[in-house]
């Protein structure tokens, strides 16, 4: 299956993509919105072939942290940050890396499904290629579309109507289309910002299955409010907390089983056992 993608992108893009995605590491990351500090020196390693879940109550900085990981944070004009984010050892904020190539390597799926509503399903999948100035021939395109939709768990539902508009799909299908669209530019890391919070339980289950299947191919970082979901899909887990008037920090991070089963910090224990948040 990968061979199709390699053909599409040529040699340059295939170079140094380790199996199971890339290693992503945040070092002492702080973040501000204007003068308000929302994250305080957060460090976290997100390993290849692993799903890392970021959990914690609202407003603790999980989404901000996630958006720092692919340089979407800075699209807000009042946002600032400190620290480093290493993608296979290279700082994504260093001037030697182009912001567009960083975002190609670190894809993102948003909370609210955001397909391009007036493009066909097919064109939605290949939108990233056109946006990054890569041409694909018609036959390659067909292969790529099928492959990405399969990986996104949407192929069987849409294979007979690839020309339909992206906006005509249901919410859950739209979200899986967004996942397929992100996969088409061949990211090494996939960030997901509460991808199921706007979806019904059935769609949520389909997306969780998709995450499970993708784990071997890309590094996945998922922000979720739903602790059952974090327990179901992730191998590693980081608990964020912003106590009254202080910026968010990671209280505890480790194997999901350990964080949920025998948390070290009493605050983690309170949160995962539903005593607050």
């Amino acid at each position: 299956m990968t061979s199709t993608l390699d053909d599409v992108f040529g040699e340059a893009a295939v170079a140094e993509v380790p199996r199971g995605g890339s290693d992503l590491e945040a070092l002492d990351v702080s973040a501000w919105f204007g003068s308000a500090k929302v994250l305080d020196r957060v460090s976290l390693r997100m390993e290849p072939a692993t799903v890392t879940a970021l959990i914690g109550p609202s407003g603790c900085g999980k989404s901000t942290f996630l958006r720092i990981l692919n340089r979407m944070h800075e699209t807000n004009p009042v946002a600032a940050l400190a620290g480093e984010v290493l993608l296979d050892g290279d700082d994504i904020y260093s001037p030697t890396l182009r912001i567009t190539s960083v975002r190609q390597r670190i894809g993102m799926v948003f909370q609210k499904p955001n397909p391009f509503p007036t493009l066909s399903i097919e064109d939605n999948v290949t939108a990233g290629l056109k946006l990054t100035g890569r041409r694909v021939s018609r036959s390659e395109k067909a292969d790529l579309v099928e492959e990405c939709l399969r990986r996104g768990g949407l192929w069987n539902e849409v294979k007979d109507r690839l020309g339909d508009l992206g906006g005509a799909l249901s919410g859950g299908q739209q979200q899986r289309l967004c996942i397929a669209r992100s996969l088409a530019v061949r990211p090494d890391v996939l960030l997901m910002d509460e991808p199921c919070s706007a979806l019904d339980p059935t769609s949520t289950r389909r997306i969780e299955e998709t995450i499970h299947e993708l784990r071997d191919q890309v590094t996945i970082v998922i922000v979720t409010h739903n602790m059952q979901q974090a327990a179901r899909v992730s191998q590693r887990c980081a608990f964020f907390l912003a106590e009254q008037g202080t910026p968010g920090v990671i209280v505890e991070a480790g194997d999901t089983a350990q964080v949920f089963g025998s948390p070290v910090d009493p605050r983690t224990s309170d949160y995962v056992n539903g005593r607050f948040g």
Partner: protein
Amino acid sequence: MTTLLPEAPPDGDPPLVQDRPRVVSPGFTTGDQVFRRGTTVIGVLVLVITGAIGLFLGYQSIPTLQRYGLGFFTENQWRPENDVIGISSTLLGTLQVALLALAMAFPLALGTALFITEYAPGRLRSGLVSLIDLMAAIPSIVWGLWGFFLIQPHAKNIARWLTEYAGWVPFFHVDTDPTAALWAQTRFTSSVFIASFPVAMMILPMACAVMRGVFAQAPAGEREAALALGGTQWGAIRTVVIPFGQGGIIGGTMLALGRALGETIAVVLIISPDFDLKVRPLEVGTETVSALIAGRFGEATSAQLSALLTAGFVLFLITLVVNTVAAIFVGRSRSGSATDL
């Protein structure tokens, strides 16, 4: 405990009592009703005033149209003293000034609107917005003087240059020798081209404001999607913002066109009246409907006044159509209405 639904009547048997919608009073308070009636009256008043203008112009033009018939639209000369009256050259001049002004204002308005919504940092953005609004507040007589004293001395050189190198295209032709050592400067002044400058400046704020409003509503989610896929900022603009704003771009431009068609004082100041039926915007002399009315109505007899008002009526109808089409386009810009790759 479970409540069971009453058993359905057997098939074919209608229920004994049919239900029907009950009357629900809207429940407006007195204050609400006063306000409601007040706004209704004001809204209707605006319609009545506009309609009355149309009716007045239409009524006044009856004698002229009866007398000259279709000839009023085909004749190009305006010599009431010889009983020769027509608006073909005047309409052509009006269109030329408006379209040329639009051609100058459109790229400026589009670029400014994109810069303001997409690139300008916060403080510069609000500064620019008020500056452009200020442009709309400058009286048109000032724009006319600006065009006459500041633009014309330089624009006539541009016109000569264009004629020298592109004069073989009829559009750029001027009936004189542009390469002569002592070139006939007055052949290049008071033209459609120069009158278009102040008109362009006057319509720019309106076009820019409409475009800016539509661009600012471009769906944030799709914009983020384009960026997160590795697209450049220009890529996101091209894919999401411009397709979404298409209606606003077209509508804003047409609203501006409506305004340009009727612009008077600045044009009167610059052009020298000429009723030749020609499309040579760089050459001296043209006439527009509003400039004709402004220039002639002071010394007009009642028959001539009727003729001027008929010209005004034609302009009124054209502008009405242009603005209505513009409003339809602006109204079409809706969330997710378009993406383009």
